[in-house]
């Protein structure tokens, strides 16, 4: 037996043990490297609670929360994608299929539209816009869209196909409405929305971390209890119910958790194209027949890819950084294509 084979049989969990250090390394690199070139010693000083005021500002208030926000958002998107792909039995499912991204976009457009006329008369002044409310507004909009899709689909029996069709239909309407509102706008609002739509970790602060973290924990703590229902929901409804699954209840719980994770992440960082779609496929490809590995791999890969993608965008773009959404879209497409080629 060759070495790779031996490793595979002796250590069946090797992908996890390999990926964990990679994730750690990526996170560290993302904190130590950036647009502002700072010596590693100084970064370390800040992390240990010392360092100059400037360094503390750059690392503690800008880079660290940005990396952690990215990490959490990566987990949210990829786990939501995995859940949606499993229960809709549609390999192309991701948060946009539940209308979540579109709902968040519409909510944010409406919010900026109203906020400007409500609080300020000059639509060209950027700083007068209440951007700190965007995550919450986006999350509520996305969540609401998910709930609307859920109830529409439930009226017709909540099958995977129903959910998918309702999601796509609702998403298309919401998207059209959002574009309609945006098209009649001043430049400052347009800039904010475009920045948000591209999916960006720029200027993400501890507020975003505090916003995401409770939901991340809630989602991750629920996952062990959902492991078997997720496997079950990959059968058709009759089979799953005959095996003893309360199909409707478990389908609903998982769908709503997926919407919660997706909506909060979309609100915080904008729709990161491809993360929710590609990461579960990558995890499944690496895990192969070891189903138990898919979930942890999805979590690790999601966090790693977003953090690395953001770092790449910062390093390549310099001060004109490339939004993470652009990086994941450009990087995700080839990954998806090569996975498709390998799956018969």
């Amino acid at each position, binding site marked *: 037996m060759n070495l790779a084979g031996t490793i595979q049989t002796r250590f069946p969990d090797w992908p996890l043990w390999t990926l964990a250090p990679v994730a750690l390394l990526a996170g560290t690199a993302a904190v130590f490297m950036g647009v502002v070139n700072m010596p590693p010693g100084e970064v370390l000083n800040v992390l240990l609670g010392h360092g100059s005021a400037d360094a503390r500002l750059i690392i503690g208030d800008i880079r660290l929360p940005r990396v952690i926000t990215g990490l959490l958002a990566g987990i949210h998107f990829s786990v939501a994608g995995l859940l949606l792909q499993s229960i809709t039995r549609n390999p192309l499912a991701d948060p946009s299929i539940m209308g979540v991204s579109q709902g968040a976009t519409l909510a944010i457009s409406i919010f900026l539209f109203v906020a400007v006329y409500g609080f300020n008369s000059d639509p060209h002044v950027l700083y007068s816009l209440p951007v700190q409310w965007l995550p919450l507004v986006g999350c509520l909009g996305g969540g609401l869209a998910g709930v609307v899709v859920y109830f529409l689909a439930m009226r017709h029996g909540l099958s995977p196909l129903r959910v998918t069709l309702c999601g796509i239909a609702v998403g298309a309407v919401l998207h059209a409405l959002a574009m309609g509102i945006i098209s009649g706008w001043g430049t400052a609002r347009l800039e904010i929305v475009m920045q948000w739509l591209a999916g960006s970790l720029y200027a993400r602060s501890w507020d975003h971390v505090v916003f995401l973290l409770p939901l991340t924990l809630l989602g991750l703590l629920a996952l062990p209890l959902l492991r078997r229902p997720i*496997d*079950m929901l990959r059968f058709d409804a009759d089979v799953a*119910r*005959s*095996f*003893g699954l309360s199909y409707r209840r478990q389908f609903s719980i998982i769908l709503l958790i997926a919407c919660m994770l997706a909506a909060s992440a979309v609100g915080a960082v904008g729709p990161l194209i491809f993360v929710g779609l590609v990461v579960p496929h990558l995890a499944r490809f690496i895990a192969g027949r070891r*189903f138990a590995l898919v979930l942890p791999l999805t979590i690790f890969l999601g966090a790693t890819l977003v953090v690395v993608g953001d770092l790449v965008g910062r390093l390549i773009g310099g001060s004109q950084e490339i939004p993470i959404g652009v990086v994941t879209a450009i990087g995700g497409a080839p990954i998806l294509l090569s996975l498709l080629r390998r799956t018969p």
Partner: protein
Amino acid sequence: MSLQCTDLSVSYGSRQALHALTLSVQKGEVLALIGPNGSGKSTALHALAGLTRPDSGSVELDGRALASWRRRDLAKRLSFLPQAPIAPDEMSVEQLVRQGRFAHVGLWRAYGSQDQAAIDWALDSTGLADLAGRGLRELSGGERQRAWIAAALAQEAEILILDEPTSFLDIGHQVEVLELVGRLSRDRGVTVILAIHDLNQAMMVADRVVLLNRGRLSFEGPAGPLAASGLIEKTFNVQGRFVDLGNGAAPHFDVDLRRSRR
């Protein structure tokens, strides 16, 4: 154990699939549902498994309406195998059969020795022990069908409902499944309700045969009276004759090809 349906009517949209069906099965009995395509066999089995909401009438297990059972409690008592079940491609035979234990292990309990014993027994009974590690996609149609039967067996339910379990199987494996059904009922007291197209196999394996025609029950009883009734020729629109094979064997229907009606 008593499973029965009373005055059961089911419709899909405007098409009524089942009209006032009343049936009951006893412990250890093998009941075969026969009838032309679209006669309501599948609908009846779905309703008996609690998977279809009837328009009127009721299905009861131990005197309690199926709709009021928790799905997991029901799955410990009753297991159902639909006609063309779908499974994730990358799943292996053993992984599929393990899912049959869900009703027993629930959301988080670890698989114990009793679960493993049930899985091994199910694999052995269907002759799949050697293929346990094989992916479902790598199996022949017949092997896949047996893997599904094994998953239903692993549930260790006392009522087994099978929707055309012998389709896709060659004659050798058809006989294996029918023998398995006979063994389950004899040795383990399992009640088996199955829909089946082959009349002779139905009469061979079943204690009672139920003939459905356009959603209505047109005969219910042992093979002998069914042969004497003349209903087979009328219902299936064929001509033929019943041959007595002697030795107490079930009668055999010999269909006549040339003289069959248009």
